[in-house]
């Protein structure tokens, strides 16, 4: 065992990379849940984004196009959830599960010819001088652009929910859809847009795994990240900055356990590999006592009777 091989600066830098897919998916789901919709299909939308982004990147050679495509794939795929819950009034839990099961199958089918290919890499954001700083450089200024987009998205969603009229309407729909309807807001339309935003974010998060984090395509490669993102939304009490904090916490656990595996700690690999899931459960237990901040209409369908 050689713990001195673990470099704390690289550890923090890779922690941020590991946290980004969780953060992207969680921010998207946070908006969806703020609108009063519980979409358990995050895992499915992520994996569709992962393969969609991967395929487009390989075909066009441009990671940027790949990421745009992944967001589009996620959003389009989430329309299936829209169809079930907003049009056909189906149970949201069951529909989310359907989305995940279907997405996992569909991605495996689409991804068959992409197994074992290495995608073109997205360049890191190199800022002269700043990126060369010791310690701070690699942590703050040496990442790929999507990582910063994730942080910017967090800030954007926070500002939108807190200060804008759109955010207020969205929250109203999530707290009490009947009242929002009575005030003349288009409940279903607002929810559809929120679900599509969530799908796009989840797609981006999935593509981040297949294009940057790993980077290659394997079946079922999201391995529960979508579910961790769902847990993270509860963890964050539906507050964007706390979602960022939580994502970094989970990213940290993942990276530390991978480093411990590499350093050859005397704990069997399997027990280290299960730690992120176990810790998710523990965190859920600690935080689920307080449910007051959950949107009041979460998971309830809205049907306007004439």
């Amino acid at each position, binding site marked *: 065992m050689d713990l001195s091989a673990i470099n704390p600066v690289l550890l923090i830098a890779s922690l941020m990379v590991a946290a980004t897919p969780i953060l992207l998916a969680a921010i998207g789901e946070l908006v969806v849940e703020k609108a009063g919709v519980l979409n358990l299909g995050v895992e499915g939308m992520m994996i569709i984004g992962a393969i969609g982004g991967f395929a487009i990147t390989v075909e066009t050679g441009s990671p940027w196009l790949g990421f745009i495509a992944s967001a589009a794939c996620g959003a389009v795929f989430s329309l299936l959830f829209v169809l079930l819950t907003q049009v056909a009034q189906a149970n949201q839990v069951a529909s989310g599960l359907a989305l995940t099961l279907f997405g996992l*199958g569909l991605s495996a089918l689409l991804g068959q010819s992409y197994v074992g290919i290495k995608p073109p890499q997205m360049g890191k954001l190199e800022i002269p001088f700043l990126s060369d700083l010791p310690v701070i450089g690699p942590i703050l200024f040496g990442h790929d652009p999507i990582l910063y987009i994730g942080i910017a998205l967090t800030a954007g969603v926070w500002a939108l929910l807190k200060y804008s009229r759109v955010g207020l309407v969205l929250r109203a729909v999530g707290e009490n859809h009947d009242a929002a309807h009575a005030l003349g807001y288009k409940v279903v339309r607002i929810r559809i847009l929120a679900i599509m935003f969530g799908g796009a974010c989840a797609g981006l998060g999935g593509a981040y795994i297949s294009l940057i984090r790993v980077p290659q395509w394997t079946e079922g490669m999201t391995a529960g990240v979508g579910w961790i993102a769902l847990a993270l939304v509860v963890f964050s009490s539906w507050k964007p900055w706390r979602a960022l904090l939580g994502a970094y916490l989970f990213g940290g656990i993942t990276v530390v356990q991978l480093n411990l595996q590499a350093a050859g700690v005397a704990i069997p690999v399997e027990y280290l590999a299960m730690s992120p899931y176990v810790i998710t459960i523990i965190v859920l237990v600690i935080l689920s006592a307080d449910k007051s901040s959950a949107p009041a209409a979460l998971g309830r369908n809205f049907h306007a009777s004439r």
Partner: protein
Amino acid sequence: MISLEKRPQPSRAWSLATPLVAVLATMVFGGLLFAMLGKPPIEAIRTIFWDPLFGEFAFYYRPQLLVKGAPLVLIAIGLSLGFKAGIWNIGAEGQYIIGAIVGAAVGLAFYPYEAWYIFPLMVISGALGGWAWAMIPAVLKVRFGTNEILVSLMLVYVAEQLLASASLRFLKNPEGFGFPGSRNLQDYPSAFNADLIAGSGMHWGVVAALIAVIFAYVLLNRHMLGFHIRLTGEAPRAARFAGVNPSRLILLCLGMSGALAGLAGLFEVSGPAGQISIDFNVGYGFTAIIVAFLGRLHPIGIMLAGGLMALTYIGGDIAQSNLGLPSAAIQVFQGMLLFFLLALDLLTNYRITLHKPEVA
């Protein structure tokens, strides 16, 4: 203008018809999917749904129907009890794995001693293993209000790691030349869950599945607990006024579904699979969710749906070897089925009315 009008009562006719319509719609769209993959659609559908039952080699495939259907029905029956009450155990895959590990461990602890009571002991410990694994989300929900969906799902990943650990370490076959995996229980008569009638596919798991169907039917239709389960799902407020104890219901529903999933795992590991190995689980726990919904959460329906789902597994395998249909296509096919089912439920709960736009 088309508008939806909520029915005062869900339509009974549509509730029976939607699964059939959903299967038909899946066949049509599945056929389109296969055509897009460059496979002959009609032949593919026939290979999946017809050949295992009536084709040339049906004598080989029919027993497989029981082998694959039994775990699906066992798990789905358990899940349906919870789903009816709005308790979402989606970690049956994990409970299935733990049931198999615990049951196999008990059996292997006796190796090579032969006795009649070893297999019954394994069955009990398999059920207890699955029960205990489901008790984690149940107790956390009752005690701390933790979301059972997320906890039970997280525990699937934990169980998968335990499975890897079991086949690489603590249950590894000492005479296995270093290969991962436990001793093969098929070579250990006291622990082997053999076919009751040789070659019929009828092992103890099938018997257990049938008993579970009858048990669930009686429970839901003739027993107070079954009434409480249905009441909680359909009218939670009324259930509270009627004095239903939600904590007790959560513990019972999750416990029962965990025990049944554990049983399914035990029967699989001691019979068709034979040993604990890294890739022992094949997603029955997740497919059972589709089975539960396809069967309308009704015991008899689940039995039929389990058979149909087993058919798609077997037919999918045949189509894979005969037509080169990718294995993922069958997964898509099953996912599609759940989709159509949920979408078509609209017809059960709502009436679609056409009327002319009103003049202001």
